[in-house]
């Protein structure tokens, strides 16, 4: 399961790296912010900070990803 998020982010990087109007890392992060749940973003950031192997764009995207709020009250 874990590497699936990286794989999905890499697919986004493959698209955005050829777009002229926005730095790809920020575009990937924006797309993730728009469409991933807080838990998915949290897992993704944890993997990147644990040093998971990833495309440089994907790694750079991490710093633009909106950090999930602290666990919501249930």
């Amino acid at each position, binding site marked *: 399961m874990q590497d699936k998020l990286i794989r999905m982010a890499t697919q986004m990087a493959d698209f955005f*790296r050829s777009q002229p109007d926005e730095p790809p890392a920020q575009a990937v992060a924006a797309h993730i912010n728009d*469409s991933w749940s807080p838990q998915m973003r949290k897992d993704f950031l944890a993997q990147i900070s644990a040093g998971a192997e990833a495309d440089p764009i994907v790694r750079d995207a991490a710093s633009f990803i909106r950090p999930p709020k602290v666990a919501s009250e249930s």
Partner: protein
Amino acid sequence: MKDFIIPDRDLGTPAVKSDVIVNLTIDGIPVSVPGGTSVMRAAAIAGVTVPKLCATDSLNAFGSCRICVVQIDGMRGTPASCTTPVFEGMNVHTQTDEVAQIRRGVMELYISDHPLDCLTCAANGDCELQDMAGAVGLREVRYEPGTNHFQRRTAEGPNPEYRPKDQSNPYFSFDPAKCIVCNRCVRACEEIQGTFALTIEGRGFDSRVSAGMSGDNFLSSDCVSCGACVQACPTATLIENKVFEIGTPERIVKTTCAYCGVGCSFDAHMRGEEVVKMVPSKDGKANHGHSCVKGRFAWGYATHQDRKLEPMVREKITDPWRIVSWDEALNFAADRLKKAQADFGRDSIGVITSSRCTNEETYLVQKLTRAVFGNNNTDTCARVCHSPTGYGLKTAFGTSAGTHDFDSIDETDLMLIIGCNPTDGHPVVGSRMRARLREGAGLIVLDPRRTDILETPHLGDSWHLPLRPGTNVAVVTSLAHVIVSEKLYDEEYIRTRCDWDEFLAYSEFLLDPRHSPEEVEKLSQVPADLIRQAARAYAAAPRASIFYGLGVTEHSQGSTTVMAIANLAMMTGNIGRPGTGVNPLRGQNNVQGSCDMGSFPHEYPGYRHVSDPETRALYERVWGVPLSDEPGLRIPNMFDEALNGRFKGLYCQGEDIVQSDPDTKHVTGALSSMDIVIVHDLFLNETANYAHVFLPGSSFLEKNGTFTNAERRINMVRKAMSPKNGYEDWEITQMLANTLGANWTYTHPSEIMDEIAMTTPSFSGVSFDLLDREGSVQWPCNEAAPLGTPLMHIDGFVRGKGKFIHTEYVATDERTGSRFPLLLTTGRILSQYNVGAQTRRTDNQVWHSEDVLEIHPSDAENRGIRSGDWVRVASRSGDTSLRAEITERVAPGVVYTTFHHPTTQANVVTTDNSDWATNCPEFKVTAVQVSPSNGPSDWQEEYQTHSDLSRRILPTAAE
């Protein structure tokens, strides 16, 4: 209940468009009609009914029956009013002694070769021959009994001219004894349906209607059972078996088909609470009186014995079901949902809205998760079909929908059809396309498989680009390369509607040799010359339109292909005028509507992001609860999170994710790990095998609401009978919400639509009153467009300037190799629909009772496979077995199947790869190996066992 009895007047010949208005007088009544109109139609418009048999306003005039003769001042003889055009100052007499005598003579001849069994005839009370005999005053038949077509035996013995009834079609019968050879059926098959299955064999007295070649019957012929011939027949010759069984209907309810995204309008002909027949509405704006075999005939599932009508629960999915009261089922569901949230957090549960249910029902289900569960975990079937359309078109144009209406097909000069099979998947649109092709429009088909639209007889040019599955982006980008390198683009359009600098940047990108047809040929196997020819033809057509389907979206680069398509249309100026456009053919009846209604986890109704503070504040005010600003889980993410142990509860309405979603084992694994799965459906579908609560649903015949079709057209669905399960689906969602403490108080779906209109700018003008008045409207429907918007982006794009997005081809991770050397792609067939839950429970089974694997002769021969053999299809995800059909429709290296049957479970084989932007699964590309097999695989046998066990229902205790 609202019944509409619209006098379905037949004006005799089709409407004619003309700028010239002609004035004439008919029986002393002055009338003005467009030039080219027939005398018959002009008379009907003046309120004068001229007798007729071979004429009907859905077909071109034919002039064979001679019943409609009239006299015209200054003209010799008695011309047929159906084939005589009006002229200025014409003075017509529809009833004179001479005309009356001719008509009686003709009728006398007709009746002399027709059985006089009117009282017991199935068409009694609804027979044009009967009506005309009355209209012309036929009082006697002077001919002696002689050679005829209708007597089984004559005095001399068996009648050699008699032919028995053809009952091979399960839905209608053909009785040659009652045929008057008016040709209406043959013409309907040609002009409306475009199949050419019927013909007249013989000449003179030997003329007979014949299906297919001699020796064929209706079933074995090319007939696709669309029923246009049955609708056109003026006698009982072609008639629905249900009319034969039940009798004539007593009322009509106007409603909308619940099958594909064409959204055909239907008149449900009812007797009591029983459907006698479904007849496509002539005034239906999507279908103009036509339909396919599914909508017209395959509605028997609504009363099928498999339908479950009572709520059921069980502790564990291995237990048998227990029939319980609604209260018990709802409390059971609510308790478990609350417990899941208490134990695993607010985000641990979610919903899947139905793309088959109404807009109002879908709106309530997404409201349930946002306002009652307190998260945004809502998704819908569009995730697995057209989510890339939403994303791609919104990015390029600014709206998540197709740009044109279906009527625009009538004005197109060339159709580029990519990854869709309209004659099977969207048959009524397919028929309209065929009609336009017969008028000379060009055709380009990008598809790995040779689809039937290519076999249409037509006048224009056609090209088939049989690309390798997974190379859409490369091929469409290469088309753009040719257009730019040969300067075939529309500079003025680009300069005014788009950003010229953006176009220049895209041109530079396109001109790189890697996008040239020669390079792309290496990837796609489409000959470079074909790519060039197609690009030139598309760019040269004055009005070129693009239609596409799931063959575009269900790829790892689905969204990129949608953008590449948008680019192609923009650079050639093919958006904003009739006959052009980018038109996704949506799969299910309300998949457009379910997207519009906020089914996606990141968007409120009207495609507004959940993080948008203004929209969120609006819904917080209307719903009276705080709302989450975080995107929720998409369907594939729900499964992943379930397997991570963090997603525990799901309410799934009208959607069979186990059969329809990819990588079945992944799906069933996820569902098995949940604490509460609620299935709300007509049947114990495959997903119900993993459910704890079953809430019985209502069919489209049993509810009020709206569906939105692929043209953004909002159509009314009207209740024709009371729900057999006791409640309409929106009521059930409301009961569940209220059991969870929501306190909703809707009393009719119109109130839900009012709330949608109040909160969604593109729907602000929509109401049930408006829809009752107008029949249907296309969104946006608001102050700026009070009657809706048939064509979008006319003077400019919704987002401002159209956006050119770079479309780099990236090969999918799913690649062929020595273990899995073939590419499997999947699709649909005409007679079955989606997972088949509905159509498998009808007589449509006679056309397609099992999924088969199409394989090219060379691939079959290499593997020792013959047609009809059982074969095993294996991928990295799993394997299944089905029968092989050897055909050259697929290229070598490509195999193809459908997913209509749960016994095949084609999705055991598909992978969890998905579109980069939307997670739409890559159904269309799976690397597989095919080998001979003895029968069903172990998985299929295990699944069947599990399925049988999980469908057990405990007997209810005796009262």
